[in-house]
């Protein structure tokens, strides 16, 4: 009992002693969670965000390290480059839906990993060392704020409503005159853009990147941020990224049993809240205190 209490106290006090590095990591993870949320706004699950992150990181590093480009400009270019790749990848890939799309994007992430494992100009298996540590809190949270403002405004815009319609029912959306393919492509490419910038920020924080910084596990982590936090609202991935990143450092006191505890938490959340912790209904008091209405999945 004493151990559990101590653990809880640690968990709470730990919140106030987060260092700058922790906050940067949390911020970057939040950005990555949001990058995955973009395809989700049109109902598409993309497991390839780690691949886009990798591309963005490599572009940004090559620009700052070898071409001496100003850091914010390098980030922007990394984002744009990744966005273009996302667009090109999206054209064939977005014909698929549901599980197949998830698999496809996942395979894309794997191919990116194998590519950078063999790509000599970026050091192949050795990766790139000696990257300038440009990333600070301002860059991370500044960009995060931009993305959040964008998403908050998107929700009630013309485009956002179109996305929502596509997410709920593609056929109906198409019948209403929405260009479904275009909506999906835009959402997918924007997600890739955000992931690319996130990758650039990550690279200039980690100072050393290698192909396997962006592997299967990273992809799954990013997916977890969104799925655990909530995939219907943009603050879901934010909460998910925070909880997961924080817990994985805070659960150190459980050291040996970290992953087991972690797996149990994920399964429990999925059993009781399959749409994630936060959802459209979180602020709906009737759902908490009154009769449970049937919410559409």
């Amino acid at each position, binding site marked *: 009992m004493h151990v559990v209490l101590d653990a809880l106290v640690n968990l709470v006090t730990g919140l106030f002693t987060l260092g700058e590095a922790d906050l940067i990591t949390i911020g970057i993870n939040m950005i990555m969670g949001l990058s995955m949320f973009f395809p989700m706004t049109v109902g598409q699950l993309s497991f390839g965000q780690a691949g886009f992150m990798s591309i963005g990181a490599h572009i940004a590093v090559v620009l700052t390290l070898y071409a001496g480009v100003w850091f914010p400009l390098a980030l922007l270019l990394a984002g744009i480059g990744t966005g273009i790749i996302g667009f090109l990848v999206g054209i064939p890939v977005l014909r698929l839906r549901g599980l197949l799309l998830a698999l496809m994007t996942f395979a894309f992430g*794997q191919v990116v990993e194998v590519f950078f494992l063999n790509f000599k100009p970026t050091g192949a298996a050795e990766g790139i060392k000696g990257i300038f540590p440009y990333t600070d809190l301002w860059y991370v949270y500044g960009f995060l704020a931009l993305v959040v403002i964008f998403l908050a405004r998107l929700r009630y815009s013309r485009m956002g409503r179109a996305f929502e319609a596509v997410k709920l029912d593609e056929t109906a959306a198409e019948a209403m005159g929405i260009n479904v393919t275009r909506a999906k492509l835009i959402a997918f490419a924007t997600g890739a853009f955000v992931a690319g910038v996130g990758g650039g920020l990550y690279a200039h924080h980690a100072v050393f990147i290698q192909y396997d910084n962006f592997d299967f596990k990273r992809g799954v982590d990013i997916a977890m941020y969104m799925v655990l936090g909530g995939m219907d609202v943009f603050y879901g991935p934010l909460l998910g990224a925070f909880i997961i990143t924080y817990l994985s450092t805070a659960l150190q006191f459980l050291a040996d049993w970290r992953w087991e505890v972690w*797996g149990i938490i994920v399964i429990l959340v999925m059993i009781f809240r399959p749409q994630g912790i936060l959802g459209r209904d979180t602020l709906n008091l009737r759902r908490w205190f009154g009769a449970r209405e049937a919410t559409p999945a």
Partner: protein
Amino acid sequence: MLATFIQQVINGLMLGGSYALVAIGYTLIFGVLNLLHLAHGEVAMIGSYIGLTLVLTAMSQVGVLPIWVVLIVAMLGAGIVGIIVELIAFRPLGRKQLHITPLITTIAVAFVLQEAAVKIFGSEQRSFPIKMFDQLKQYDLYLGGFRITFVQMFIIGASLVLMVGLYFFVEKTKMGKAMRACAENTMTARLLGVNVHWITAWTFGIASALAGAAGVLIGLAYNITPLMGVSLGLKGLTIMLFGGSGNIVGAMVAALILGMIETMSVAYLVPAWKDGFAFGILILILLYKPSGLFGSRLQIEAGR
């Protein structure tokens, strides 16, 4: 030149046979439950560790065990692990789940199993003891200066026997019929008196037992590591899609093709791109023929 080529063909058959066992499990689970079981490769990994532990303990207590006993025990163990996975990560989700919920829970299970394996067996590469193979050397076949080891024959033979056995199980027995009914339409199967929960558990059990067998066979030919499940699972997934989801015969053929491609690409092309080939194939299939080479029995493109 010819000798190396034949050797590569045998390696390809070995690899393909083991992959087929994993892929068939995937296909069974996907077909009956419309669920991607992403911890399937990890179940195979657990199976090979069960086999290894059994061999090592038996060696210190009684002596070298016959290879088929190891295989059967590992299959039983993996089957039980599979049923437990179903009870923990799939059954409680109920029917209101989204299509990605089981994906996430099985990934969580995969991580837990990996960590458990690291904790119990250590993270270093292991392999079956050489002493075990020494005894079997006497059964090696010599064909004109060319050797096929007993282990190689055993791997190919065992995977063939299991595949054929599974095929007859699914096509000819009553439970196989019930499984196919569930794959067709769970609701209708339930109305017709099929105990769907029971069938689900059995499907997981059988699929996992096959994965456990694959784990042991791969362990016999190569190494055992806690991370072997990741690539094994991915290969199984690729093969399932390649052969057509829910199509057991398709999975067998596709597995042999992928096993061949992989060994040949290692032998004659760039080894570092080995995994790239598998994923390149996966991408091409998904793009141009999502129903797989031999046709899918199921509609899986239907969104959420």
